[in-house]
């Protein structure tokens, strides 16, 4: 999955599930858009569905430091590469 494709799907999830329209790719999602830890857990579930794979607890904990859309894209690309999908 190429980065542009992932980005389009993530922005669609943010629009439909979190009512956040086109956030800047380096915006601090918590400070600027009120995206909190509960939203983070919901997003991890969406990522599992997107990648059709269950995330380990360690992988989920690693996501807790993620703050921006670009970091989310990095995170997803890493997960995909670890599963041999890039």
């Amino acid at each position, binding site marked *: 999955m190429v980065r542009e494709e992932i980005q389009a799907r993530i922005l669609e999830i943010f629009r439909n599930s*979190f*009512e956040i329209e086109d956030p800047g790719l380096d915006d601090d999602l918590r400070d600027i858009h009120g995206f909190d830890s*509960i939203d983070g*857990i*919901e997003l991890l*579930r969406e990522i599992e569905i997107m990648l059709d794979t269950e995330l380990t607890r360690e992988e989920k904990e690693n996501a807790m430091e993620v703050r921006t859309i670009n970091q989310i894209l990095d995170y997803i690309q890493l997960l995909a590469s670890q599963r041999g999908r890039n």
Partner: protein
Amino acid sequence: MNRRVVITACSAITPIGHSRADICRSLLKGVSGVKALRDDGLLTRYIQSGVFGTVDYPIDYAFKRQHSKTMGPVAYYACQVAKDVLEQAGLDPAFIGSGRLGVAFGSTHGSPTVQRDIYRTFFGGSQSKFSSIGAVDYLKSMVHTTAVNITKMFGITGRVISSSTACTTSSQSIGFGYEAVKYGMQDAMLCGGADEYDTTTVAVFDNLLACSTKFNATPHLTPRPFDIQRDGLVVGEGAGAVLLEEYEFARNRGAHILGEVIGFACNNNGGDLVLPNMDGITLTLRSALKDARTNPEEVDFISAHATATKMGDVIEAQAIAKVYGDKPLVAGLKSYMGHTMGSCGVIETILSLYMLAEGWVAPTLNLIEIDKRCAMIRHATTITEAKIRIAAVQNFAFGGVNTSLLLKKFDD
């Protein structure tokens, strides 16, 4: 420290209306909010009662996702009436976040709608490998979801009390809120209760043979408190909130005062969890009068719990006669909307405040022929002009919990 506690704002979502004008119109015209029970695809096929006190009008919620993401239907109701009340009251935003405003708000069991979704996830036979409860499902369904969604939405930082004692949930909210202000722990309390459309509660009461079943084809003719043909309670949905403030605080900020809470009592029967208990109820009514330093003959109106069960109404009528005699007008307001469970105490308080302001008492709906065993008190059977100075709101719950609130028309 004994401070006066006044009511400065109120709002209710009920099966007979949301605004004061709609609710009063329904009371004056004898409009019932009881409708046919909707099929829930789960329990209704096993339930004999086919009626429900239903909120069937749209409510224009304008909650941002930031707030609504942790709310089930019951919290939507709660936050809407809380929003109405705070808008009416016009409190200084600095005070709202000062820690001197608290919340006393509850429901019977949080959100059964969300709880069903959780159970469906585990027991629904889904083959999805990603099925799990959502991150916010607990926050939406938990028993104190109403109180804390209110604190979150409005930034309230004072104490939180979240009663969940079924039919006395919101009368306890008001009573415990009144005590928090009276004794100086808080300067104001936002108090109330809510319950959403829920067939689980109907199933529980139906199984105990406590629900009305003979009027399924004519829902508006039930419940029938104190009437010879009454055949049980009707479960309903709704919400209500009142703002209680310390009198000097309210006066100094120029608040419009709707009434005063002058007394409260709560006790338990100390025995059977279901059967009404004359001694327990009588003691509660007398304790509230003592707290209010008021004589029984000073009470002009009683909002009876009056669920329209066979025994409950008889015991309550006898307890009223024993404590108050036959002078105060008595009305069973559940006759208009069914038993709204966790919200009935606050809704009946608000309806009493409306009638106190309007100068009339609405009759108990469907009270055509008074059961002789309930006939020793002064029933309101028609719209009655009445200058109410003091009103009593009494509620009794499964578990043997009893409450009585005493309200007074405001005068300096």
